[in-house]
């Protein structure tokens, strides 16, 4: 787990702030689709997760979801695995940040490698480091 601390933030074309919770609607799926589409077209992207979205990249999720009783041998990747794969596929154009407060508040600050914890009061730095910001949902 990295901490960005006072390091200069890289600039990016787009910030996608995932504020809404997983398992409530299409929000997280839309965030993954939008991120993939932007990165494939050569754009640079910052992701920021707040609230329950910080759980998307928990180390404790492991590589695969729990077994499916009706398709026992099939593997289903966790969102942490998908995040890791995105970061390794787009190592220079994707940066993924998680809110430290929201993570710690949920006892969920052990993220997979590559996720950078950031204090919430630095969020405005992230807004300024990108040309466009999308907010998805609310905490």
């Amino acid at each position, binding site marked *: 787990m990295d901490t960005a601390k006072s390091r200069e933030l890289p600039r990016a074309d787009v910030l996608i702030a995932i504020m809404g919770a997983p398992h409530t*609607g*299409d929000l997280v799926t839309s965030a993954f689709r939008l991120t993939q589409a932007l990165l494939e077209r050569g754009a640079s992207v910052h992701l920021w997760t707040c609230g329950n979205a910080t759980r998307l990249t928990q180390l404790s999720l492991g590589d695969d979801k*729990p077994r499916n009783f009706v398709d026992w041998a099939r593997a289903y990747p966790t*969102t942490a695995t*998908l995040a890791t*794969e*995105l970061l390794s596929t*787009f190592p220079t154009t994707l940066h993924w940040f998680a809110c430290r407060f929201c993570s710690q508040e949920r006892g969920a600050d052990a993220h997979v490698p590559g996720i950078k914890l950031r204090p919430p009061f630095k969020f405005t730095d992230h807004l300024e480091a990108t040309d466009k910001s999308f907010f998805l949902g609310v905490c």
Partner: protein
Amino acid sequence: MADTGRRLLIIERAYRGSVETQFADVLYFVRELNRQQGGMDILLRGLAVTFAAAHPAPVPALRIAGRRLDTLPDPRETIRTLVSEGAGVWAQDSALAEFETGPDWLQKGVRRASDATFPDWAGYLSVHFL
């Protein structure tokens, strides 16, 4: 009041996640309850009536990083499976009116629920909102 000896499950909230949910959507839980309890009736209301559409939805798959993620929820297929496994499925006609485009829109085996014809709550062992 006829006692059905079954349980009634009411689903109103549809599409609760896809990438993060995959196989473990609300109907996955219903399927297991149906198997363990020996019979379930399901009443679909609101947007959830689209679970019972006959026409297959586009294959739910996404590309994420270098992977094709094709293990996303497929509620129409799961409703088909539930009907074949003996679950009773009802769809509220006031919600169907929002989506139904023709006489073959609704899956075979799915019954319409209306003010005149509906699962009678009192006849069930229990009623669950999922």
